[in-house]
């Protein structure tokens, strides 16, 4: 029973990865919108873009990790 609950929890935690995807899409989309308005400034900001994506994605990876822990370690 406990194992089943853990699997359900893993599923719920897995949702977090999808929600993090929203964040990543938000970052990338806003970057593109800004880049199209001012293309000359876009080139210098790709590093910032990747840093933002990395931070947004890290939290999704955390929930993925929680899911994995629930599946295999609990």
């Amino acid at each position: 029973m406990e194992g089943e609950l853990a699997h359900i929890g893993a599923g719920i935690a897995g949702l977090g990865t999808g929600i993090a995807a929203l964040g990543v899409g938000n970052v990338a989309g806003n970057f593109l919108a800004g880049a199209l308005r001012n293309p000359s400034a876009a080139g210098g900001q790709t590093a910032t873009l990747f840093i933002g994506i990395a931070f947004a994605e890290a939290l999704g990876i955390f929930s993925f990790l929680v899911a994995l822990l629930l599946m295999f370690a609990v």
Partner: protein
Amino acid sequence: MADEAHSGGGLEFHPLDQFEVKALFGDGPIHWYTLTNVTAWMALAVICIVLLLVVGTRKRAVVPGRTQSVAEMAYGFVYTMVEDVTGKDAVKYFPYIFTLFIFILFSNFLGLLPMSFTTTSHIAVTAVLALGVFLFITILGFVKNGPAFLKLFWVSSAPLALRPVLAIIEIVSYFVRPVSHSIRLAGNVMAGHAVLKVFAGFAQVGFLIAPFAILGVVAIYGLEVLVAFIQAYVFTILTCVYLKDALHPSH
């Protein structure tokens, strides 16, 4: 999933078997000195790095050949990154940062070979990398700035009443850095490889599903090639960002 492995019939997914650490010779227990597949793939990464950066540039041609231009491109890529993100005074830490970048890059790409073992998918490995960066930057910050390094947590541009709260947040986020730094890399690589294995597992369902499964594997593989590079890039650029904090804590 572990239960399914015992049931025999039906789908058999073993997406995590690829991460198993195995002794190269014999089945004995794994001690810290045992030659394992970790050793083998890390050694392979070292060989590839030597081939690219040492053997590839041995001619020292002014007009570079193919391998040499790739080596120079990698050098220039990381060098500009360090210079742009961290500043000119960080150039003396460039070999350390380049070591991290080239090791992660080659581990990720070698891990994409079929039947290979991905060293960077292990949290133990990335945690050592991230903790190394964390300790290096903390020690460097205190050596360079003395107690003034603590100003990093005291946001002097914020209203005075908010500063203690912000200081707590800053300290927490400072100590979360190595965690997110290591888990981001390991998690991305592990997730990608596990998904590849799961898609490959679908191929055993039947002839109708198999082509789609293989198509999915190809698509995910392409994504993973991209991720392999981007994660190396992100790890490096975050190291540069953290290093900037250590060198110039008062922004």
